[in-house]
C-alpha cells in the first residue's frame, strides 16, 4: 500500500508536510500533527480522495490536504 501524504497548497504546487505508511504509523501522532497544523494555519483538513473534511485521520484515510481559509472566512 502506498504511503499517505499530508499536504498543504503552496506557491510550489503543494508542500508535503508528512509522509507515512498507514499500516505501521502511529495514528495518534499523525492526528496530533494534523491538529497542530490546523491550529497553526487556521485551516481545515480535507481528504483529497473524497473531498470531505477529515475530523480524525484513520488508517483508511488517503491523502490529506490542509486548506487555509479564503478571504478571512
Amino acid at each position, binding site marked *: 500500500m502506498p504511503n499517505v501524504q499530508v499536504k498543504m497548497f503552496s*506557491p510550489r504546487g503543494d508542500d508535503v508536510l508528512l509522509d507515512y505508511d498507514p499500516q505501521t504509523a502511529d495514528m495518534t501522532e499523525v492526528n496530533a500533527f494534523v491538529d497542530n497544523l490546523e491550529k497553526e494555519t487556521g485551516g481545515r483538513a480535507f481528504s483529497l480522495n473524497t473531498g470531505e473534511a477529515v475530523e480524525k485521520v484513520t488508517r483508511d484515510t488517503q491523502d490529506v490536504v490542509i486548506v487555509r481559509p*479564503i478571504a478571512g472566512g
Partner: protein
Amino acid sequence: MRFINWLSPVVYVIQGIVIAYDFGIGLYSFHRHHFFIGGLDVGLAVGLGYFTARSYKYGKRIQAEVREELERRRQMPVFDQFAAETKAMENLKRVMKATGTVGHGGGVITKVGNFKYFIENGYIRKYDPVGFEVDRTCIHFNNNPAANVPASEFIASAILLLKHDPSIFDRWKRQDDYYA
C-alpha cells in the same frame, strides 16, 4: 601696517608649502617613498613589494569569495513555475473528481445542496436550481496574502470549503471585493 600687508602673501605661501609637505603633496613629498611596516621604514622597493603582494592576496581572497557565491547561487533550487502550475492543476483535478465538480469556461461548477456555484478566478457566482444567478461574490484569488498559491489551487480550496460549509459563501459575500 604696510609692511605686514606686503608680507602676508609670503606667509601664506610658506604656510602652503609646509602644509603640502605635511600632507605629502608637491615637490617636497619625497618622504612618500618611504614605506612603514609595523613602524619600521622598509624603503621603497620592499614597501612596494609588500603592498603589491598584499593586494594580490586580497584580490585572490575576493576572487575566491565571488567564486563561492556563484557556486552557492548555482546550487540554489530554481523556482519552476511550470511544475508548480502542473502540480496545482493535478490537485484541482483530483478535488474536482472527488467532489463531482465539472469544468466550465475558465472556472468550475460545483453543486452544493440545491444550488450551483460557478467558481472562477475573480468571482464566485451562485445559481438557483432553475439556473438563474442569485448572488455573486468577488474574490481575487491571486491577491490573497493568506494563501499565495496558484489560482487553480485556490479554486480547489474554494470547492472544498463550499462543499463543507455552504454558509461560507455569505461570509465571503460580506467581504465582497476582497483584495490583498
